[in-house]
């Protein structure tokens, strides 16, 4: 008897979720530019996962007989000053962009969410201390903050991710805090508290899941920006060092040869633009599909 009851509960729970997903996909796929963005991201992910299979050449191996070639049938985008195939280097750069983008975003979102949740849930002095700290963090431009943190931690890909993550966490903390403050007032929170749930349990089991929609939207909308910051830092030559290939450092490497070989610095930039544009469009699409009311606020 009880088993049957459980099963029927399950059935009731499943069907609206399927509808939800279908509705999400319908809205999401309704705009061609969003579909275009999704396809670009798919290609990007494939490039990031299997660059060895796609890239025609080794991105690091120098070929000093073929330096600074103009584009031809063998090297579609030409070669750089050390004879390395530019197209292959751009394809390998996708891995750095995706890795830094995703990890930095994760660091920013998780730390921002925990701080915002704590501040919003407890209120009072906890709120004042955390949110004033976030306000102070917001006074520093992300680029400059990431620069300083990268200097502090030393070079390396991981430190760049941490630097961008800390630089960007204030946005998440703010949105999360606002959400937590409004969710906190709901009756089901009071019900949970009166049934003896601990603060930690209420925060993570009851408040957090109800704050998710705007957080997911914010995260998808910020991936593009994260990749832009990564490109900016690697353009300045901070953190990411050879032989790791990053789009920003490719632009910087090619800058020296701008007059005779403009493609060397412009082509990696086009890769950045296409990818960031794709992420921004998909972010807009996700926002419209999850909650169009967020338009304009995020």
């Amino acid at each position: 008897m009880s088993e049957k009851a459980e099963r029927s509960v399950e059935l009731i729970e499943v069907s609206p979720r399927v509808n939800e997903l279908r509705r999400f996909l319908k809205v999401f796929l309704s705009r061609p530019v969003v579909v275009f963005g999704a396809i670009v991201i798919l290609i990007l992910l494939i490039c990031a996962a299997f660059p060895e299979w796609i890239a025609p050449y080794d991105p690091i191996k120098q070929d000093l007989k073929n330096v600074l070639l103009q584009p031809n049938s063998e090297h579609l985008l030409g070669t750089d000053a050390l004879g390395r195939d530019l197209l292959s280097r751009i394809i390998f750069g996708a891995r750095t962009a995706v890795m830094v983008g995703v990890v930095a975003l994760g660091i920013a979102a998780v730390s921002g969410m925990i701080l915002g949740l704590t501040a919003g849930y407890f209120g009072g002095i906890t709120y004042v201390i955390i949110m004033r700290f976030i306000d102070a963090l917001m006074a520093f431009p992300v680029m400059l903050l990431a620069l300083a943190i990268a200097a502090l931690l030393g070079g390396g890909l991981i430190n760049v991710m941490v630097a961008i993550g800390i630089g960007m966490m204030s946005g998440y903390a703010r949105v999360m805090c606002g959400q937590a403050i409004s969710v906190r007032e709901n009756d089901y929170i009071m019900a949970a508290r009166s049934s003896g749930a601990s603060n930690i349990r209420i925060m993570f089991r009851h408040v957090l899941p109800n704050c998710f929609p705007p957080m997911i939207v914010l995260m998808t909308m910020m991936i593009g920006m994260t990749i832009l910051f990564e490109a900016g830092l690697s353009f300045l030559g901070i953190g990411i060092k050879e032989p790791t290939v990053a789009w920003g450092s490719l632009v910087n490497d090619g800058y020296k040869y701008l007059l005779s070989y403009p493609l060397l610095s412009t082509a990696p930039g086009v890769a950045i633009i296409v990818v960031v544009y794709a992420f921004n469009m998909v972010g807009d699409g996700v926002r419209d599909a999850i909650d169009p009311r967020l338009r304009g606020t995020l």
Partner: protein
Amino acid sequence: MILVLLIVTIIVFLMVRLLPGDPILIYLTQQDLEEITQEQVDIIRHNLGLDRSLFVQYIDWIGNVATGDLGTSIIHRGKVGDDIKRRLPITLHLGGLAFIISIIVGIPMGVIAAVRRGTWLDSVLTSLGNLGITIPVFWLGILLIYAFGLKLDWLPIFGYTSPFKDFWLNTQQIILPVFCLTIPAIASAVRMTRSSMLEVMRQDYIRTAWSKGLRERAVIMRHGLKNGLIPVVTLKGVTLAAIVGGSVLVETVFSIPGMGRLAVEGLNSQDYAVVQGVILVIGTIVLFINLLIDLSYGWLDPRVRFG
């Protein structure tokens, strides 16, 4: 505000103190290290005040900062404050211009896009807005240098001359960098203004304004824009920080000796006192401008004034 400023100083202070390794190593060269004894190191440490507690060091440092002493550069042994005094006006000049242009151009474009929603004009402005927040400023700078500097040879491609020395040369030099800084700022202003205006134009009081026969101009300017601008004004503070952040890249591309360039140079030569000074000054400026923005709410939104 005071509390936030205090936290800003603590963050900047700790940022440098948390550096891995002994801070004293910053003051000594490799050669010094091989020659001097441990006792001498201790004496230097004592003279620099590095053997006291972190709290005392902070009080000491903040006292110096309050009197304008931002420390000494380890590279040229000059005062960091002097460096910043020389370079801050340059960044303020470029960044300020970009900020003002982005307001003058971006907000009307956003309003037009919202009012003419669904027309080709809206599509063009929205696409430009989406593209503008996508383009990396350093790449845009390189493209402009290639087109207007190298190919057409219309404009100088690097450097900065004081406008008081040679105004015409200065104008030529700053056109491209300011353009680079302005594009993302305009784009975000267009996007924000458009979505905020669309939200406002749906409200009941706008319908009332239309139905009582007000002219389009009055509906949009007096009833729509004044309400629609409130979120935009808030976000202008973020734009400001973005412009300053972008100036790090733009100043590097165009070899402009501003604050951003100073920070990057300080970083590359491990001159942390310089980095610390730059970040502190910029953080404080951004905070104060955000305070001004908060105060401007009172004018835009009487609910804040009387609330």
